[in-house]
């Protein structure tokens, strides 16, 4: 049954093949695109349950034993991330049915969508540093095409920034992996972790560690490397932005947590302090810049950055509770962030614009939409009993327990400003009257939202509520994952078979 781990990689490739063969039937391509994302979600749930029950799953691809071949590994952390990738993949693919125009769909939107998921899934389950680089590239190439798909002038402008900065990040990643290989002679993560533990001169890998920090920091949009994200995320269609916002930055955070818990923090050095400082600054700067924006997508884009800060801060605490909090927060943020973008897309479909100054009165005309917005928005702001409250609660408790009062205080303050931003969208978009001078924009808009847009948003909203109400259930998974991350011997033994 170890071959189970190949399915998150095989399914998207199969989706691509089917989509290429079905050149003439757009409906079939749509149906198969959605079907394969659903299949990935089901497989991810199976893997999550199996890892929770039986421990770490390992697949030696091509029967080559570690550290010689490429190993696929799913521990709890990977399995949780795989599950959220599946959830977002499925919901966004349904959402895209109702939103994407025919021209973009004809240019193989669903093929690229599945290839992007292939890269994300691969990055979550690989046990090899260079293989992780390859999955990052798969993900990036698909995202490059998705962000330019449609070829509007604004999109191309955003894409130039996005592509350039991500190429720089990939080069740094490659350089870091090269240095690491030169020093340690292996790139298998488990083997590397073991050798670093037993190597007295292992502090020499600090140069690679710093390069990894910058490379993943760029992908995760951490201070001071976040500037590319708000410059590009608001340009593609909102279904693409929702997918990117939910998953791509979190792959960077995943890689950061994986590398620094497994390799670098146990070696000592300034890493924990560095994470606390960058985490704090990321939270603050993201939330302040968001407060000054008036385009829904831009507000939400800046909030992605501020939320990433919480996860980095959790890693900086480096206690089981801190890491578990960071993982829980990632899950919560993936769901809530994607959902706010989805609702933003619905608003723009009804009003023809994302500009808050020309929107208003939605609470009166579409009360259910207001409800759909308020759930993920309040979840992001951290209002109980939604998921964000418990995410912040766990992180704050971890912060106080480990006596990091200052950065924890910042995180509480940032939560307040987040609430302010969300209330701003609420006031401007839903509460105030529709501005009269904006009537000509409304004429472009449509009257109805449509089931395909509402359904995924409802699913994610229910999930946000569920993660809050059944917090013990979800936190149990995160705590197991955190304990595995802080005790890497189980991971090492599972991969190297000792």
């Amino acid at each position, binding site marked *: 049954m170890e071959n189970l781990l*190949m399915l998150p990689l095989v399914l998207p490739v*199969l989706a*691509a*093949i089917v989509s*290429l*063969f079905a050149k003439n039937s757009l409906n079939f391509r749509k149906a198969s695109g959605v079907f394969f994302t659903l299949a990935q979600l089901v497989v991810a749930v199976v893997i999550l349950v199996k890892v929770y029950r039986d421990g770490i799953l390992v*697949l030696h*691809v091509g*029967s080559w034993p570690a550290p010689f071949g490429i190993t696929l590994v799913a521990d709890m952390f990977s399995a949780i991330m795989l599950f959220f990738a599946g959830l977002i993949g499925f919901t966004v693919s349904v959402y895209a049915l109702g939103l994407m125009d025919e021209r973009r769909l004809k240019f193989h939107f669903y093929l690229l969508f599945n290839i992007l998921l292939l890269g994300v899934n691969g990055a979550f389950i690989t046990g090899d540093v260079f293989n992780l680089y390859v999955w990052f590239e798969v993900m990036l190439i698909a995202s490059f095409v998705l962000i330019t798909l449609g070829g509007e002038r604004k999109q191309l402008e955003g894409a130039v920034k996005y592509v350039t900065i991500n190429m720089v990040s990939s080069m740094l990643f490659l350089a870091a992996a090269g240095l690491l290989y030169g020093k340690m002679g292996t790139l298998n993560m488990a083997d590397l972790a073991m050798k670093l533990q037993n190597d007295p001169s292992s502090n020499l890998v600090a140069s690679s560690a710093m390069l990894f920090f910058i490379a993943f920091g760029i992908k995760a949009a951490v201070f001071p490397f976040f500037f590319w994200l708000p410059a590009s995320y608001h340009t593609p269609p909102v279904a693409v932005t929702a997918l990117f916002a939910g998953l791509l930055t979190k792959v960077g955070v995943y890689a950061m947590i994986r590398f620094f818990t497994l390799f670098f923090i146990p070696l000592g050095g300034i890493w924990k302090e560095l994470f606390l400082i960058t985490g704090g600054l990321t939270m603050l700067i993201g939330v302040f810049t968001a407060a000054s924006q008036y385009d829904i997508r831009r507000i939400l884009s800046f909030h992605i950055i501020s939320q990433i800060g919480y996860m980095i801060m959790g890693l900086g605490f480096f206690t089981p509770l801190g890491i578990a909090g960071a993982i829980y927060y990632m899950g919560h943020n993936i769901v809530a962030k994607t959902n706010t973008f989805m609702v933003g897309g619905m608003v723009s479909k009804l009003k023809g614009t994302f500009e808050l100054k020309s929107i208003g009165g939605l609470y009166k005309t579409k009360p259910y939409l207001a409800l759909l917005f308020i759930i993920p928005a309040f979840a992001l702001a951290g209002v109980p009993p939604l998921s964000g409250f418990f995410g912040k609660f766990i992180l704050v408790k971890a912060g106080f327990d480990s006596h990091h009062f200052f950065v924890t205080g910042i995180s509480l303050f940032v939560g307040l400003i987040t609430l302010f931003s969300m209330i701003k969208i609420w006031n401007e978009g839903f509460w105030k009257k529709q501005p009269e001078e904006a009537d000509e924009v409304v004429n472009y808009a449509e009257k109805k939202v449509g089931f395909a847009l509402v359904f995924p948003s409802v699913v994610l909203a229910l999930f946000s509520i569920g993660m809050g109400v059944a917090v013990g259930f979800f936190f149990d998974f995160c705590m197991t994952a955190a304990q595995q991350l802080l005790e890497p011997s189980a991971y090492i033994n599972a991969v190297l078979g000792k």
Partner: protein
Amino acid sequence: MSNPYSNIFRMAATKLRPLLLILSLVVLYRGHQQPGGGFIGGLMAASAYILYALAFTSAEARKKLPLSTSALLASGLAVILVSALLSVFSGEPFMTGMWTTVHLPFGQELHLGTPVLFDLGVYLAVTGVLLTIMFDIIEIE
């Protein structure tokens, strides 16, 4: 429409196409033990058709292809997937290499296995991608 190219170029493109295709298959097969392989073989196969498209038109080159360019790409991916999955169906880990020897009539042996099949998939996919890109560029002019 008058022909911008010489008849010599056209004749050469016509005669070189089968030669290049055969050579590309040779390179593909020897690639497992020696320099060569699916990627370089695919490039050579694509060059045969690109040459033809330059001498005549891309539409005529498309006609000479057994499949459309995107179907070539798709079948390449499908062959790769099948080669990776064959070992799964016989209970081995994903992508494990499986080999068999075919005896040819004149006492020669052909060493075939899933890695060769994988390479064939790469060959088809590279041909498909390259021709998709090149035909599009030729047709923009």
